[in-house]
C-alpha cells in the first residue's frame, strides 16, 4: 500500500546555517525517486526530515493524505534503510525484523508470517537465527531491507544503502532493488551521490545542490537537457566540456557562437532576447565530439592522455589556445598521446549557459 509524498516549501536551518532552502517536491504513489547531489548538499537531511529524524524548520511534509511532519518517526508509516544498516547487534535477524512489529502490538502469528515471507523474498530465510556480526555485508544489507519490508510501509527511504558494498555486489544489489520496486510497487526515495545508481534506478531524479533543487526530471531529461550548468557538469562521465562564450550573433535560425579554442560554432538554439553574453558558456559532452578520419579538416586537438576503456576511448587534450577538451572516440581509435587529431562537434547537442548557470538547449537535444 504505497502513498504519495508531498513536500511543500520545506526549509531546514541549524541556527544561522541554512541547509535546505524552500524545497518543494511531489512524489507519486509507487514512484522511485532518487535524490542525487554532491556530499553536504543536504540530501540526507531531506530524507531524515521525511523520516522524522530531523525536525522541519519551515514548511510541511505529507505522506498520503496525512500531514506527518508533526508526528514522531514511528507513526509516519515510512521505513528507512540506513547507510550503516543500523541492525540491532544483540538481536538475531528474525528479532531485528520483528522488533518494530512487536512495538505496534501486531499478533505473533502475523509477525511470523510477514518475517517469513520477507525472508523468503530476500533469500535470507536460512539466516533468521543469526546475529548481525555473523553476516556478510551483503547479507546485512538484505536484513536491513527486510526489516523495512515487514513493516509494509507507505514509503521506503534509502540513505545511500549501497555505499558500503564492494563494486560487484553493489551492481547486483542495484538490480535487485529495481526488481523489488517492480514487485512491491512501493513509493521509494533513494539518496545517493552516485550518478550511476541514480540513472539506473530512478523514475525521476531530483538534483540537489547548494540548499536547493536544481532540477527534477527523468534520467534522460537530466542527462540530455540539464537545467543548469551545475547539473550538466555533475551528471555524466566524463564531465561535460565547457567553453567561455566571447560573442554570439543570431540570424533568427542559427546562433553563431564565438569561443576561444573552438572558434566559431553554429548552434540551433533560441535563447531569450534578454540573454546576456557576459559570463555565458558553451557546453558539449565528450560523446558529442567526434574524431575525424585523418586528412579531414576540423578543429585541431592535441591529445595529452588517452584512456582506453575497451568499448570506447577517451582522449584528454587541449585546443590551440590551451583550452582543455575531452573527446569520446571509438574503442578502436588509434590515437596516442602527443598526437594531433582533428575533431568536429555535433552542433545539435550544444548547450548554452548564462552567467547564472541557467541552460538553453539545441532543438535536436
Amino acid at each position, binding site marked *: 500500500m504505497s502513498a504519495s509524498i508531498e513536500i511543500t516549501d520545506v526549509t531546514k536551518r541549524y541556527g544561522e546555517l541554512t541547509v535546505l532552502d524552500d524545497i518543494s517536491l511531489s512524489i507519486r504513489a509507487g514512484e522511485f525517486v532518487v535524490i542525487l547531489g554532491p556530499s553536504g548538499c543536504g540530501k540526507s537531511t531531506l530524507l531524515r526530515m521525511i523520516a*522524522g*529524524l*530531523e*525536525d522541519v*524548520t519551515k514548511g510541511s511534509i505529507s505522506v498520503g493524505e496525512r500531514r506527518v*511532519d*508533526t508526528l*514522531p*518517526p514511528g507513526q509516519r508509516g515510512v521505513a528507512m534503510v540506513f547507510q550503516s544498516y543500523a541492525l540491532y547487534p544483540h538481536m538475531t535477524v528474525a528479532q531485528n525484523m520483528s522488533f518494530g512489529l512487536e512495538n505496534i502490538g501486531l499478533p505473533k502469528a502475523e509477525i511470523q508470517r510477514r518475517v517469513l515471507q520477507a525472508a523468503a523474498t530476500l533469500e535470507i530465510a536460512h539466516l533468521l537465527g543469526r546475529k548481525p556480526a555473523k553476516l556478510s555485508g551483503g547479507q546485512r544489507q538484505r536484513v536491513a531491507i527486510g526489516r523495512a519490508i515487514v513493516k509494509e510501509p507507505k514509503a521506503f527511504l534509502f540513505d545511500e544503502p549501497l555505499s558500503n558494498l564492494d563494486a560487484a555486489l553493489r551492481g547486483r544489489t542495484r538490480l535487485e532493488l529495481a526488481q523489488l520496486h517492480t514487485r512491491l510497487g512501493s513509493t521509494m526515495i533513494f539518496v545517493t551521490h552516485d550518478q550511476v545508481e541514480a540513472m539506473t534506478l530512478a523514475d525521476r531524479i531530483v538534483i540537489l545542490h547548494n540548499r536547493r533543487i536544481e532540477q527534477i526530471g527523468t534520467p534522460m531529461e537530466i542527462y540530455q537537457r540539464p537545467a543548469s550548468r551545475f547539473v550538466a557538469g555533475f551528471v555524466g562521465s566524463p564531465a561535460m566540456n565547457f567553453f567561455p562564450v566571447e560573442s554570439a550573433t543570431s540570424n533568427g535560425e542559427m546562433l553563431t557562437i564565438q569561443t576561444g579554442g573552438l572558434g566559431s560554432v553554429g548552434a540551433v538554439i533560441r535563447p531569450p532576447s534578454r540573454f546576456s553574453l557576459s559570463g555565458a558558456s558553451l557546453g558539449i559532452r565528450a560523446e558529442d565530439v567526434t574524431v575525424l578520419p585523418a586528412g579531414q579538416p576540423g578543429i585541431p586537438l592535441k591529445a595529452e592522455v588517452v584512456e582506453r576503456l575497451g568499448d570506447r576511448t577517451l582522449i584528454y587534450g587541449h585546443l590551440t589556445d590551451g583550452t582543455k577538451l575531452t573527446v569520446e572516440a571509438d574503442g578502436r581509435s588509434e590515437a596516442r598521446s602527443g598526437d594531433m587529431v582533428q575533431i568536429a562537434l555535433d552542433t545539435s547537442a550544444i548547450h548554452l549557459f548564462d552567467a547564472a548557470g541557467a541552460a538553453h538547449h539545441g532543438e535536436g537535444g
Partner: protein
Amino acid sequence: MAESYRRSQWSNGLFVLPYLAVFVVLLAFPLFWGVWLSLHKVDLFGPGRFVGLANYGRVLVDPVFLQALRNTIVFVLVSVPVLVALGLFLALALNRTTRMTSFLRGLFFSSSVLSVTIVTLIWRFVFIPGDGLLAVLSEALSVQPVNFLSTSGWSLFSVGVATVWWCIGLPMMLFLAALQQIPNDLYEAAALDNASPWRVLTRVTVPSIARTIMLVAVIQIVMQFQLFGQAQLMTNGGPNGTSRPLVMYIYEVGFLRWDVGKAAAASELLFLIILVAAMAQYVVSARKSEASE
C-alpha cells in the same frame, strides 16, 4: 512548530533525576555544608555558632597541622616521581605480548585490588621489629636490624614503600595503554633513520605519551595527598607525629576529638591544596609541551 524526536523535553530529564538527587544530597550539599561547618564552632552536641575564619586560624597555628602538612608534602614529592618513573619503566619493559609479560603485568597490577587494610598488614609483617621479614633477613645476614615503623624518618619511608607497592599498577597500566597508541610506523621510520634505542625512547616514545605522563602525575598527586590508611595502620602517625599525614590529622580532630569545625577547616585547606597542586602541575606541563613544540 514541528516536533522532533530530539526535541528537548522535561520528561527526558526523569532518567537523570535519581542520580541527580543522590548527587545533590550526598555530594553537592555536603561540599557546601563542609564550608559552612568550617566557619562555625561545631562539636558533638550539634550545630554551633558562627565564628568566621577562627577555625582556619586555629588550624594554621596548630603545630600538629603544620607537621602533618610538611609530612604530606614530603611524601607527595617523593612518592609521586617514584610512582611515575617506576610505572613508566615497567610499562616500557612489559610493552610486548608474551606469556611472561602479560603474567608480570597482571602481577604488578594485582596489588591494586587489595584493600588498604591488607596492604598494611602485609607490610607490617615485613617491617615489624623482631618478627618481620626484614628483621629475620637482617638477622640471617647478621646486619643490625632497623626499627622501621617507630624510627623517625624510617616510618614515613616504610609507609611510602607500602604505598608504591600498592599503587604501582595504575600508572603502569595507563602508560602501557598510551604506549600501545603510538603507531608502529613511527618506530619503523625511526629505525630507517638510524636512531639509537635511547634516542627512540627520548625523541619518539616519551614525547608521544607526554599527555599521559601529565595525567598520571596529576592522578597520583591527588591520590597521594589523601594518604591516610597506610600511615594510620602502619605507624599510627608516629613516632612523634613524624609520619602523620593531613587526612589523618583531619580524622583525629574530627572523629576522635570531635572538633568538627576545626576538622572541616583543615579538610577545606587540604581540598584547596590538592586543587592548586593539580592545577599547577597541569599548567606547568601544558606550558612545557607548548614550548617544546
